[in-house]
């Protein structure tokens, strides 16, 4: 078990190093960021002076070395536009995205898993077909569209929920639903497949033969086994929620890191964009690692196989 965990952590570290290297070079692939920072009327001399002041005239490998050294000291640099430490700017936004991702997970798990179980247990019924339609809608409506639709209906027409911002718990409702919809559908489908798979196994009729009701059999045996693939998906979905947050946060003016990414791209705030990409990638890797470890914990076959 220990070897398994150490191996997984080692892999995650290698992946993280790969990500920060890729982020560095991709961000510089498109050219000199100095050009984005000067006012339109700046002369060639002014651009050269700023390039030198920012260190963008150094060889790329030297810049890469400096970047790694800074990262090792947890120094993400100072925002060229906002003139404040990048780490602070990004850190201020993380709680908002965590709250939003939490809200979306509540929506996704709270609706997706019961829906998936119901679709499996009552397979072929009218209920399954109705739920399948619901799941399909959650999966196929793009958030930039469903978000605006919700704002217009619940915010403008009914006046029930605030149209934008993050000043109360009510503000969290619509963004959570918009962001959670796709993940909810994924959970519903995965749960349905996993439960159906388990229901077809021999231990289910055996349990029924022992006198357990279908409900008890599902609750006691099927769900425990069906949870394995769902847990894996849950961890990976957190990564997808972070990616989806870019759109949802922009639509609902929710001040998380997704919105920060868009604002920084618009403001050409190079170092913040780089740090946000880095943050999201590391979270993704971290969630993958957690999924792996949780998997081993739930299913002894996996750790025993090694």
């Amino acid at each position, binding site marked *: 078990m220990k070897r398994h965990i150490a191996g997984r952590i080692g892999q995650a570290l290698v992946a993280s190093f790969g990500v920060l290297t890729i982020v560095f070079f991709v961000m510089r692939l498109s050219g000199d960021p100095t050009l984005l920072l000067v006012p339109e009327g700046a002369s060639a001399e002014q651009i050269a002076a700023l390039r030198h002041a920012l260190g963008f005239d150094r060889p790329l490998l030297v810049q890469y070395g400096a970047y790694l050294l800074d990262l090792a000291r947890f120094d993400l640099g100072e925002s060229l536009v906002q003139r404040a430490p990048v780490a602070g700017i990004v850190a201020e936004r993380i709680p908002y995205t965590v709250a939003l991702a939490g809200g979306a997970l509540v929506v996704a798990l709270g609706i997706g898993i019961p829906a998936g179980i119901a679709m499996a247990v009552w397979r072929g019924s009218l209920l399954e077909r109705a739920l399948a339609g619901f799941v399909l809608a959650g999966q196929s409506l793009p958030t930039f569209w469903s978000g605006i639709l919700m704002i217009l209906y619940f*915010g403008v027409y009914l006046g029930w929920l605030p*149209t934008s911002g993050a000043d109360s718990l009510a503000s969290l409702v619509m963004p959570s639903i918009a962001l959670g919809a796709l993940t909810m559908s994924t959970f519903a489908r995965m749960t349905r497949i996993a439960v159906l798979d388990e229901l077809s196994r021999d231990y289910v009729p055996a349990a029924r033969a022992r006198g357990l009701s279908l409900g008890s059999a599902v609750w006691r045996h099927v769900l425990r086994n069906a949870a394995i693939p769902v847990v894996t998906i849950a961890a990976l979905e957190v990564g997808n929620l972070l990616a989806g947050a870019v759109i949802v946060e922009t639509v609902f003016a929710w001040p998380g890191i997704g919105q920060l990414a868009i604002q920084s791209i618009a403001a050409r705030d190079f170092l913040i964009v780089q740090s946000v990409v880095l943050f999201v990638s590391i979270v993704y890797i971290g969630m993958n690692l957690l999924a792996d470890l949780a998997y081993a914990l739930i299913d002894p076959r996996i750790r025993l196989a090694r």
Partner: protein
Amino acid sequence: MRHPRLATPLLAFAAALAFAPAAMAQTKDALVVDLPGDVATMDPHLQWDTDSYSVYRNLFDNLVTRDTAGRIVPQIATAWRYTDDTTIVFDLRSDILFHDGSKLTPEDVAFSVRRIINPAFKSPQLSQFDQITSADVTGPAQITLHTKTPYPALMAQLVKLSIVPKAYVERVGDQAFNQQVIGSGPYKLKSWQRGVQSNLEANDAHWHGKPAFHTVTFRAVPDIPTRIADLRTGRADITRGLTPDDADALKSEKSLQILPVPTERIAYMFVNALAGPTKDKRVRQAIAMAVDRDTIISALQQGYAKPANIVLTPANFGYIADIPGWPHDPARARALLKEAGAEGATIQFLTSPAYDRRLNEAVQQMLGEVGLKVEIVMLDQPTYLRRRQGTPEEAGALSQGRWSCACQDADGVIFPLFRTGSIWSKFNNPEFDAAVDAARTVLDETKRLAHYRRAFEILRDEVPGIGLFQDYAIYLARKELKWTPTANEAFFITDMKWQP
């Protein structure tokens, strides 16, 4: 007996309910503004994007300002005079207090100038002020500025110079000042939740009087449909950055009003005069005659634009109204292309996602109709800038742009765009260079206008660029808000009133 006793409070409650909305509507204490983005820096000597500008200019007083008609008028300076071509003396008010109660002195003004022109401070606004060589306190209520050469755009630039408190900035340092600014303006910064919103509170002691709104909240709401929804529900009172299409769709909205204003931003097309098929003047003239401005304005801008004959707007000094534009004449354009032997030639139109894709395609079609194949080259912004500012050979034949110098002077527009040696210029005409050089070093306005007339005549004939239209800024506000937006997109809350 019980009924009358119950009736009295009930009646009073009903009356309160009936009158409350009317009473509330009379006064509105809190104004809420939805901006597309948050303030980048509160320090007015750093960023100057429209969102930062909209907020912090309410926190500071400037040396001079512009009235609603666009004229430069006193603010901190009460009067100014040139003692020679490179020396200008300002008399200052002595009754202005910063928000911390300290007095605004000539030392603060001189400090503000020195701070922004100090290269070590790395202000993005440096290029607008670097003609100033020194700022000296020359009296108890007087400062004197010196410029490298006679610099006629100086006053236009000083409109943007906010005065910061020397003692406070020096005591807390630049970074802390940026987080908790102190100015002398009509509003003071109550709190700033970076990236989310800024809360301003009226400075009732302001020398210009008490502002109409006691508090102002600026919120960052990036998505246009969300900002419109905020306005509809009354969550916000005013927003900016609507597109012509949004404005068109909102015309019939009863509780809202659209406030459009022609700005100093010129939409133009760049035409490369130094490389490729457009090196031939006849090809450039043919392009000018093939582009149909009126169609662009009615179809893409929904009428929210004014046609421009030259690469400058009437909101800028140096605008020459009577220079004729090229007529829309596809037949003559075709003939000219044939004469130049450029029929069927392929030219590159460089662009990036920052520019209106529809305009690229409209121009592509218009030029296609007269026999020029336009290849639209979509680049990421840094690559686009590198090529557009690079050698003539890599700059492509065409590109579009919307240029604003935020100085309302021709010097900030046609000098960087077309003067030989400027990174944007792909044009080489010694006579044009001489005219714009002369216009930037002579103070006499009549003489300057004569130089610009000559410069624009050359541009008209040589076509290194084509003026398309004067761009509009479009605001959306609740009907009750009374405000007239201005060409320089200043967003002074003190100019706004609430009138149900």
